[in-house]
């Protein structure tokens, strides 16, 4: 499924000018509030019509202003999960879930009630009214409702933004399962680096109504300059790792990655499970020699692949560790003192305790949730 967008839309002073194409499992539309990402997703859903442009999904034209085509939203078969769940207050949870089925041709109904209810863990809620649900439960029901309409594409507009950390942690694993266990491509709007790094396969970065960059998550998350100012501290390398073993004596988990072994606080994941690990650039130190007498447990050898100016007084150093890029943010002074230049052999040092649930997904895993 390829979603391709090329539109111009004017909203008062604000001009949205977006062109991108995405074929990822979960594409994140990422940017600060006011960057136009919600408008963009509303355009794809058909809630608004662009002033000019073309949107197609899987080759089917949804909008083409030049050809005067506008497929109304109810014919698009695009599911949408809103920030505010928007459940139907006069129907039970089961009624909400079943709503979309009526309108899906029987031959195209791939979503099964039991499977979706299981996937989202909402079996015990079926008879309740939406008013009696918690924020996290509402959002899970809203996701289920969208899924049961058997959409060809699922849009999620900041589904976690109005929830507290605990509720976010409750829902994230379900979205991961959705991404991994169903075949529906997802477009996910977010302004949170933690969510995007954890969930997205591809990222489209929006800034002031324009596409600033797009590409695979690993590559985009390293471009700290693309992140909104308040989220910049969260930026860094994203590595796909596997749980090698647990060190029960010291309460740690050893992850294997291309860059080498990385020790993190004990994760509630079984050996062999994949973990998408984010290493914040600000948590990475650089040593020019193999350090000794150091408390930090993770020392990865590599060579400097890039030196980029950061926000004063920092610079960003990309270290190529056996083909995987680890990003470090250090001061201009340190760079100077250590004479760090391209091709330099260095060691990236990361404290185990600098990893938390936001960067490892620990405790958020489905296993831990049950």
């Amino acid at each position, binding site marked *: 499924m390829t979603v391709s967008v090329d539109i111009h839309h004017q909203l008062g002073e604000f001009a949205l000018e977006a062109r991108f194409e995405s074929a990822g499992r979960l594409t994140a539309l990422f940017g600060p509030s006011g960057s136009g990402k919600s408008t963009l997703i509303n355009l794809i*859903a*058909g*809630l608004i019509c662009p002033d000019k442009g073309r949107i197609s999904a899987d080759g089917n034209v949804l909008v083409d202003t030049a050809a005067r085509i506008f497929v*109304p*939203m*109810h*014919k*698009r*078969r*695009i*599911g*949408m999960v*809103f920030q*505010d769940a*928007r*459940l*139907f*207050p*006069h129907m039970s949870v089961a009624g909400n879930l079943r*709503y*979309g089925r*009526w*309108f*899906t041709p029987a031959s195209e109904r791939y979503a099964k009630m039991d499977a979706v209810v299981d996937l989202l863990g909402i079996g015990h809620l079926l008879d309740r*009214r*939406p*008013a*009696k649900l918690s924020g996290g439960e509402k959002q899970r029901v809203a996701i289920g*409702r*969208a899924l049961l*309409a058997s959409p060809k594409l699922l849009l999620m507009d900041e589904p976690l933004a109005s929830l507290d950390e605990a509720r976010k942690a409750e829902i994230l694993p379900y979205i991961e399962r959705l991404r991994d266990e169903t075949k529906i491509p997802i477009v996910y709007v977010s302004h949170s680096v933690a969510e995007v790094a954890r969930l997205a396969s591809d990222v489209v970065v929006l800034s002031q109504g324009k596409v600033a960059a797009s590409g695979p998550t690993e590559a985009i998350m390293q471009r700290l300059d693309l992140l909104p100012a308040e989220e910049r501290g969260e930026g860094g390398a994203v590595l796909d790792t596997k749980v090698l073993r647990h060190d029960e004596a010291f309460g740690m988990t050893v992850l294997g990655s291309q860059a080498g072994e990385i020790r993190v606080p004990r994760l509630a994941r079984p050996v062999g499970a994949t973990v998408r690990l984010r290493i914040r650039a600000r948590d990475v130190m650089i040593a020019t020699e193999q350090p000794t007498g150091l408390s930090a447990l993770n020392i990865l050898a590599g060579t400097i692949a890039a030196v980029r100016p950061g926000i004063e007084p920092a610079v960003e150093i990309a270290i190529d560790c056996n083909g995987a890029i680890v990003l470090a943010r250090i001061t201009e002074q340190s760079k100077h003192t250590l004479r760090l230049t391209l091709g330099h052999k260095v060691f990236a040092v990361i404290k185990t305790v600098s990893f938390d649930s936001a960067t490892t997904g620990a405790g958020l895993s489905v296993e831990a949730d049950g």
Partner: protein
Amino acid sequence: MTWLLDLTPDEWNAVRLSIKVATVAMIASLPPGILLALLLARGRFWGKTLLNGLVHLPLILPPVVTGYLLLLAFGRRGPAGAFLAEHFGIVFSFRWTGAALACGVMGFPLMVRAIRLSIEAVDRRIEAAAGTLGANPLWVFATITLPLILPGLITGAILSFAKAMGEFGATITFVSNIPNETQTLPSAIYTFTQVPGGDEGALRLTLISIVISMVALIASEVLARRVGRRMDIE
């Protein structure tokens, strides 16, 4: 209490007729009432203010004027009356149907207003959510909007019914005061007050009309509350 129910056949007819007229007026007003309320709540068109004024006119005009206008338009010789009589066999003048029309028109502004307010209170984002699930606008209206405005619908209907039960001026002007045909409760009470010794009859019908009105109001209150509780809007 028995003397209260000890009515003459004519008086019974007035009670029955009043209930029939009010019920028909209420039910017949509902579809156009919902349509106009929708138009006024959501439509954006030229002349909306004018339309709104027209809908409210029966509330402001003296009932006699409304009745006379109905007589001009829907009387046997009136343009609308002649057309309906000729093509559909519907006759209003000096018939109970005319009383229902007059009552419906008089209660219409109250009904439209109640429904309009409830439509304006509906969260349109919930309707949009139904749209993304595949419901076309008609289905969205039937499955989302209509259930959500049910309390307003009930209120509007009861207001229309209550207004019809009490309507006098427009009805007597349009269809006169013919026993067993157009003599509703208010007309019957009026007739009693115009004859010597009619006080007892007037009082009986007055009490009956109070009972009917109270029962209707309480029923609507209970109904609206039950619907409201069932929905328990977030």
